[in-house]
């Protein structure tokens, strides 16, 4: 019931979001609200679902494409990027946070914290400039700076950028949790029993950190989706963002469809990460 309600809320939210540009307009030098245009667009969309008009979008000046035919390609590409980097983030986050929580060096925290604070677009632009200047000074092509076409994808840099921000977020939150867990009494008991450090880490620390990871997963997923817009846009990746931003003029139907596809992306990615954590639970918390 709650899930159904949130789905309806989300769809309504998308409709409203896509209707904003139609609602707020400027005429004769002042802001005006025009609700009827937005209402018209929404009703047209709902009517158009039946005969398929809602899924047509304009490309260029006079070409019309079917959204349902185009979307799988974009969707799968975005999904590939986001799932790969998401899994990397979870694995790295788990591995580093246990070590990181024990480290007393404040400067390590400074650096990791600052990396986490740097906005994604700055990371992207710096990486691109770095790759280009390495190439210009040494002639060595480290990675592609941007995708050039349908078959010539930039892979390394988008994955790095997409993975780095959730990784740092996970390291920060999970290390706090691990720190708290290590202060619990059952750890002291285990230590008093003479269990080795590694055994305590694997049997007690990791399994007590996993629930927090599970709880943080929605946050990680939304961080990654919001990075995906910037990353795909700046690296010219032919993913879902292309459909959202590279249209000619503003098209209500296309925007709604693309945003809905993003929700689908969110759900699939969340499911994959959840599955992965389920596997980890089978390994570390199996009773």
């Amino acid at each position, binding site marked *: 019931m709650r899930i159904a309600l949130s789905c309806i809320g989300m769809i309504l939210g998308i409709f409203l979001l896509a209707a904003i*540009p*139609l609602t707020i307009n400027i005429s004769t030098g002042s*802001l005006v609200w025009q609700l009827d245009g937005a209402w018209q667009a929404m009703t047209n969309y709902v009517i158009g679902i039946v005969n398929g008009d809602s899924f047509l979008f304009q490309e260029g000046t006079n070409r019309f494409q079917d959204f349902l035919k185009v979307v799988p390609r974009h969707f799968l590409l975005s999904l590939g990027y986001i799932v790969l980097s998401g899994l990397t983030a979870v694995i790295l986050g788990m591995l580093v946070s246990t070590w990181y929580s024990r480290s007393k060096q*404040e400067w390590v925290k400074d650096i990791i914290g600052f990396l986490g604070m740097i906005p994604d677009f*700055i990371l992207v632009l710096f990486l691109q400039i770095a790759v*280009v200047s390495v190439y210009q000074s040494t002639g060595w092509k480290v990675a592609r700076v941007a995708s050039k076409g349908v078959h010539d994808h930039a892979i390394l840099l988008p994955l790095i950028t997409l993975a780095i921000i959730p990784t740092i977020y996970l390291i920060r939150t999970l290390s706090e949790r691990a720190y708290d867990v290590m202060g619990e009494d059952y750890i002291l008991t285990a230590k008093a029993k003479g269990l080795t450090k590694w055994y305590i880490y694997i049997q007690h620390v990791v399994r007590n950190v996993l629930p927090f990871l599970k709880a943080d997963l929605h946050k990680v997923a939304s961080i990654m*989706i919001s990075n995906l817009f910037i990353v795909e*846009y700046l690296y010219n990746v032919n993913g879902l963002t292309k459909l959202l931003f590279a249209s000619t003029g*503003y098209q209500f139907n296309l*925007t709604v469809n693309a945003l809905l596809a993003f929700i689908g992306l969110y759900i699939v990615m969340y499911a994959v990460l959840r599955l992965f954590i389920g596997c980890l639970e089978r390994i570390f918390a199996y009773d």
Partner: protein
Amino acid sequence: MINWRLVVGITLVSAFFIVAIFGPLFAPYEKDFVEPSGYYYNNPDDFGMYASPYPPSKAHIFGTDEWGYDILTLLLYGAKYTIFIGVITAVLRMIIGGFLGMITGLQKKKRRTDNVFGLLGSIPAFIIVYFTMTGIIVNSPLSTGTLIMIQTTVMVLVGIPGVYAAVYSKTTALKQHLYITASSALGAGSIRIAIKHLLPHLQGTFMVMLLKEIILVLSLMGQLGIFNIFIGGTILRLGGPPVYVSITRDWAGLIGQWRSFIFDYQWILFYPLLAFVLLIFAFYMLLRGIELNQKGAFHKYPHI
């Protein structure tokens, strides 16, 4: 031991504020000065022409952009928009969200707020601002001041739920303390408890949250800049490839309008980026300094 992070943070942030207020006074050129193109002729073997963009040199420390504007001058003129709008937006978010969070947190009945805000929170903030501004910002007949007002309002509204949720959860945790119970047993209302008891306790947390919000707002402005939504308005020049220009020359806008200078003339993109990163670094150092100052009292220590 002196908290050097705090010192660095305070120094840098105040330096940025000085730049924001007095920046135009330090500027080596007028705002609309354009370094002219030209040619030189010394002898039949030594002649040629020069044209912008000029690389960094003594005359132009950060170089000039593709039309010959001095980049340092533009940065100094634009600083006030970036810094003040960032700070003011964050302060407004903190005041409104913090107040609402404390008051509702103190109320007796439990609310299910996480549901609604969780949904809204999963839509990235810059998407919401983008869709609000996209129709009215490009070649807008509205004045720059009006556009800044609208943008600030939207950016404040988008950020309130996050602040609200954080303050709400902190308040409900603090509410368990006996001094709150004692105070409300004596008949204090929730506003009095919030001001007299919660605020002093949350002061440090609020300061840290405010600095985090400033950094978040700055990166939100930057992300909008990437999509050509510039603070104070975007000029779109057509006829040839479309060119987007920031009216106010705020730093996020400069980065956005020059973001494709990665292959050649990289200084045009590099110095604004550097300035932006340094700004974030300044606030971050301040944040770390304050965080470390108040860390320690309630922490547990690990056994292994």
